[in-house]
């Protein structure tokens, strides 16, 4: 009997995936005849049989990833002619090994995060049952920590984790990113542990991409009127209000006006239901030193321009001072972000769940534009919007954007009070 081992296909390769068996148990095989195909991080290869004989055992099913140097098959070499025609003499191990057979050689089936000592990784307590369910459902420890607990001291109960599994099933399938086992790349690395905000952003962004069918549109608007208005009134405004007049409240104002005409933009999706939100609460993304936060201007439709400006200023200054309360960042129904703040023309924002659209405001720059066949210098801005194609089609998204453009270009404010 000759063992076939998972070959090491490169110095940094630690494992390979069996993509196809070319032979079944009991098949005759010649030396150097292809037995299987494997795929690794770097290459796909056909693996020849090390000797002639009968395929006695195939120890792993296709698509199974196996550490290098692991025995993956056995070739029976002392084959007598009669035994080749008598199936009962062929070892009967199935080409798809039983779960027991697999589990003995593959303890790594358990997600590593859950095995590496709960106490070291988390301050939360998870019951044996919750851990067990998480393991069976492929929920990582960091995901487990994000499930809101309904038990004593906010413990995540069996019901909480099962509800989470249900919700996840109803959402789009989450692809499991294969952890890299390629070892330390040459040249040295520095490992930076994500802080809580970074982890939250990472989780939220990935979940959003997996949840919503993102589609985008970009338009441009002539904001010369607004720029002139701001230029004219900013000194007086600052004297009266005690803070600088920025462009943000103008965008919040026009978004609110446009949403009133296109209520489907102010919605969320729950399974196969569309939830229209009656309140218009506009999230305004604020970049921080180590991340990003989105405080929410509540009841934006009930505020006049000065009220919006005050709310935006209050939230963004408290965001930078780290003085926001949890309530300040909840309940948003639409978000405005500002990729232009660093001078960029436009961006492709990711929807802030559970909302269905996010507006990205690019840099406001003076550009030559053609007006009535004459070239004029105008203050122009590119505006992008990502929206959820599950409920917003291009027609609606496009019309909404154009309405924003109209409001921006025809901005009228009598008195700023």
């Amino acid at each position: 009997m000759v063992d076939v081992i998972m070959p090491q296909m490169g110095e940094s390769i630690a494992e390979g995936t069996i993509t196809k068996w070319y032979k079944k148990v009991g098949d005759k095989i010649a030396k150097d005849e292809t037995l299987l195909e494997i795929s690794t991080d770097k290459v796909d290869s056909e693996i020849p049989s090390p000797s002639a004989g009968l395929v006695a055992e195939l120890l792993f099913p296709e698509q199974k990833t196996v550490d290098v140097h692991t025995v993956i098959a056995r070739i029976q070499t002392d084959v007598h002619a009669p035994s080749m025609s008598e199936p009962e003499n062929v070892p009967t191990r199935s080409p798809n090994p039983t779960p027991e057979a697999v589990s003995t050689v593959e303890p790594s089936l358990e997600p590593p995060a859950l095995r590496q000592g709960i106490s070291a990784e988390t301050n939360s307590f998870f019951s044996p049952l919750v851990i067990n369910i998480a393991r069976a459902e492929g929920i990582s420890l960091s995901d487990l920590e994000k499930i809101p607990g309904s038990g004593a001291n906010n413990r995540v109960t069996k019901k909480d984790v099962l509800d989470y599994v249900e919700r996840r099933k109803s959402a789009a399938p989450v692809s499991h990113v294969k952890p890299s086992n390629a070892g330390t790349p040459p040249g040295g690395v520095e490992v930076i542990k994500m802080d809580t905000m970074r982890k939250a952003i990472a989780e939220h962004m990935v979940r959003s991409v997996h949840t919503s069918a993102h589609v985008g549109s970009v338009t441009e608007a002539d904001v010369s009127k607004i720029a002139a208005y701001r230029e004219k009134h900013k000194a007086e405004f600052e004297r009266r209000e005690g803070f600088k007049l920025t462009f943000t409240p103008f965008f919040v104002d026009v978004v609110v006006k446009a949403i009133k005409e296109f209520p489907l933009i102010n919605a969320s999706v729950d399974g196969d239901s569309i939830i229209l939100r009656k309140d218009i609460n506009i999230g305004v993304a604020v970049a921080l030193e180590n991340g990003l936060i989105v405080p929410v201007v509540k009841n934006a439709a009930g505020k006049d321009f000065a009220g919006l400006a005050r709310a935006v200023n209050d939230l963004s200054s408290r965001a930078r001072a780290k003085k926001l309360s949890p309530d300040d960042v909840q309940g948003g129904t639409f978000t405005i972000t500002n990729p232009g703040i660093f001078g960029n023309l436009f961006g492709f924002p990711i929807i802030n769940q559970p909302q269905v659209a996010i507006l990205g405001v690019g840099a406001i720059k003076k550009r030559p534009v053609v007006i009535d066949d004459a070239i004029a210098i105008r203050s122009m801005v590119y505006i992008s919007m990502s929206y959820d194609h599950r409920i917003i089609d291009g027609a609606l998204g496009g019309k909404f954007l154009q309405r924003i453009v109209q409001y921006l270009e025809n901005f009228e404010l009598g008195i700023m009070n």
Partner: protein
Amino acid sequence: MPVISYIDAISKGLWEEMERDSSVFLLGEDIGEYGGAFKVTKGFLDHFGSDRVVDTVLAESAILGAATGAALVGMRPVAEMQFADFVTCGFNQLVNNSASIHYRWNLPVPMVVRLPSGAGIHGGPFHSRNPEAWFFHQPGLKLVAPSTPYDAKGLIKAAIRDPNPVLYFEHKRLYRHIKGEVPDGDYVVEIGRGDVKRSGNDISVISYGSAVHFSLEAAETLEKQEGVSVEVVDLRTLMPLDKELILSSVRKTGKVLIVHEDTLTGGIGGEIAALIAEFAFEYLDAPIKRVGAIDTPTPFAPTLEEYFLPNKEKVLAALRNLAAY
């Protein structure tokens, strides 16, 4: 189907077995002329005669020794301890002789010991014990503890037909408090099989004897008030334990409360908790909880006795804790 009391179900079972098998006979204190302290054997003497309904001296050691000897020579004795508390006087016969004979001599000892046990009848420290845990620890004995008339009759019959010494714990408070449907004819409840008295999904209660009843009441209340679905498992047999039933219930619900009337420390609940921890650990969503009597002798004063015993309210409080965990 006739509805009869728990005590009548025991009497019926005994009567039918004596009619069925002439090797079955009864012995105990005041069981003949007087009909037994609780009247379980009332009328037996007249019908079966004094050879088969034997009034004995006040000596539990003698009763249990005689029963053991009779079993060894092919009889099927049913010995009554007037109160389960008094079995202590015959402890040596049971644990050193009856329990070990099969292992020493390879001989069957088909005897039954009836133990009227339990508190809640203002009997004080000498007439209220639940002594099952002492014998639970002794290999070679079987222990049954029915909670309903149906199980009482079915288990006394199974106990009499079993080739081993079987301790039959009959709860005094259930005698006339509990009535239920009992078929007229012959049937047995298999020893070693528990019974789900109430099906549920959120919490398992494992109990036996009198505790089954107030656990069921607590389960009903909790379901009605808070929508928590509680399963109540009645062990019926304490040895050998129906491990599969216990574990399957816990695996279903993930939370478990063990309730017995016996005092808590060293009670059977500890063994059940260990069993669950060992074989269903990964199914637990909460710590294993127990409710039992306070670790003191049974108080005589009714108010203290009430305070001492587990009851519906104590079970309800423990269930609420588990539900909220």
